[in-house]
């Protein structure tokens, strides 16, 4: 093409008469944009450092175990590779990482919308108030699953890969897959709902982080002290940070609890807290008008 062929073309405004997606696509768009931003996408490096570091820490136990196996061979773990880090213990092992990750991610999803008064803008589109809450729960859940679900799945895949007879391993341990998925989802949904509910109470991210930590830490400490002092094991259920992890462990056959509380009790407590969180979200985001 010669210079004579070149021409300046105005960027014209064109009308769009093509198909328009509905509410589901709008909810998915809200969830995708929100979760990516919470992870620091399209933001400065400071916004990326903490979430990415925490995700790497979540994967660290699996990568260490599999790395040692890859470097030193099958004899490195006396009880076998699978026993070195049981799936049932994985989320407990990285429990603090999951907690901090959810504290970092969930306020970022809703606090800026209140601070910048963006809600009115969102509600003028195809999404309703209810859709907004669903989208934000999905937005919280997707990154949290990166630390509650993805690492044990990677560990499972590694165990299959390094097994002397991979197919035989899958045959023996197939039931662990739904357990891993169930545990990851339970913990993920719990932290997503609780984090969003607390964050919805304020437009200030710092207050949300502080409130969330206080909600998880204070009852845990108080419950632990009272349980010890009064010798009343049920008070251990106040350990809100441990509630979903203990409930998830109940999905595995090797479940045990030092206070002899049943997995069902932990699960019921988890559900109760999640229901309260849903009620808080419903109240905070008001009546659905559309």
């Amino acid at each position, binding site marked *: 093409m010669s210079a004579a062929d070149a021409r300046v073309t105005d*960027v*014209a*405004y*064109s*009308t*769009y*008469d*093509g*198909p*328009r*997606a*509905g*509410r589901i*696509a*709008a909810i998915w*768009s*809200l969830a995708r*944009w929100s979760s990516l*931003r919470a992870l620091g996408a*399209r*933001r400065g490096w400071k916004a990326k450092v903490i979430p990415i570091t925490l995700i790497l820490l979540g994967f660290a136990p699996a990568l260490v175990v599999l790395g040692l196996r890859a470097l030193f061979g099958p004899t490195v773990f006396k009880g076998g590779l699978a026993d070195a880090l049981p799936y049932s213990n994985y989320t407990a092992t990285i429990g603090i990482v999951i907690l901090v990750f959810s504290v970092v991610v969930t306020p970022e999803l809703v606090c*800026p*919308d209140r601070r*910048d*008064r*963006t*809600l*009115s*803008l*969102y*509600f*003028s*589109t*195809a*999404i*309703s108030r209810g*859709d907004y809450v669903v989208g934000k729960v999905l937005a919280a859940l997707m990154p949290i699953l990166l630390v509650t679900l993805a690492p044990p799945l990677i560990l499972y895949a590694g165990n299959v890969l390094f097994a002397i007879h991979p197919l035989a391993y899958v045959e023996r341990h197939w039931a662990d897959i739904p357990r891993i998925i169930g545990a990851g989802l339970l913990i993920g949904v719990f932290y997503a709902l609780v984090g969003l509910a607390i964050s919805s109470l304020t437009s200030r991210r710092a207050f949300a982080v502080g409130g969330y930590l206080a909600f998880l830490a204070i009852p845990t400490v108080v419950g632990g002290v009272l349980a010890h002092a009064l010798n009343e094991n049920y008070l251990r259920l106040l350990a809100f940070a441990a509630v979903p992890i203990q409930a998830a462990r109940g999905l595995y056959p090797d479940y045990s609890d030092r206070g002899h509380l049943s997995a069902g009790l932990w699960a019921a407590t988890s559900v109760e807290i999640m229901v309260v969180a849903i009620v808080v979200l419903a109240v905070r985001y008001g009546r659905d*008008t*559309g």
Partner: protein
Amino acid sequence: MSRNGGDEPLVEIEGVSKRYGSIVALDGVTATVRERAVGLLGANGAGKSTLMRVMLGLIRADAGSARVLGIDASRPAWEVRRLLGYMPEHSCLPLGMTARDLVVHMGELRGLPRRVAVLRASEVLFQVGLEEERSRLIRTFSVGMKQRTNLAQAIVHSPGLVILDEPTNGLDPAGREEMLALVRRLSTELGIAVVMSSHVLEDVARTCDSVIVLREGKVAATRAIDHTSAAVRGDVRVRIVGDPDGFARAARQLGLKVHRDGGGEDGWLIVQGGDADGVLTGVRDAACTAGVGLRELRPAGPTLEESLIGAIG
């Protein structure tokens, strides 16, 4: 003319009432919007924003009905909202996003496929004059740039109708001029019907084809805005100190049309001739040439303001 076919009105509001506790925001408002650009005029608290929120289905009216683009605005509201654009009055942009990301995101939320939303975001940001700043964070924008971003997000999905709530609020004179020009372009060049609220009559007169005046939640008056009217053309009535015939001759030599209005020596002269600036310059030059003074100078016809005041009573 309407996007939804034929002569169907863009907006039909029938007896809409809305009350917040003891405060009556809207009281039996009935209005039909057929023109491509309609202004909602009223003081703060007159019910403009409430009426817009009813149109968008963001709030339910206590009584009455609203149809927008042929769709009942109250049910299902999301269906009508994805065909509408909305520019809220207050600052509501996510400050941590770039203009491009916001416009793409809002396009997707209003039903555009992602690829289309990306393409159209570039188009509308160009149209509002933000093509160079599209990758900057919104928090670094001036008020005028934020308002233009706000407008871009409202039209990215090619809406049949865009609702603008006080689009010139908070803008400096230059920013206001730019925004008014953009708003006028929406209906005249881009084919998007406009409902714009304002408490400034001049803003409505310059950008709209008709005006609905709200007062205390009721429709106080509706008027078409004739952009070819004497007031808008710039025709004037003058009263001369000195020789009116001399002034008329001088004015005619400058290409203006002059005739008497009211008769008698002290009567008014009507001066016509092209645009407002040309007439005023001609009157000044003719007065100098004829050596006369100007006692009074007024628009030749009743202004929109006078007309509305007369209608409101």
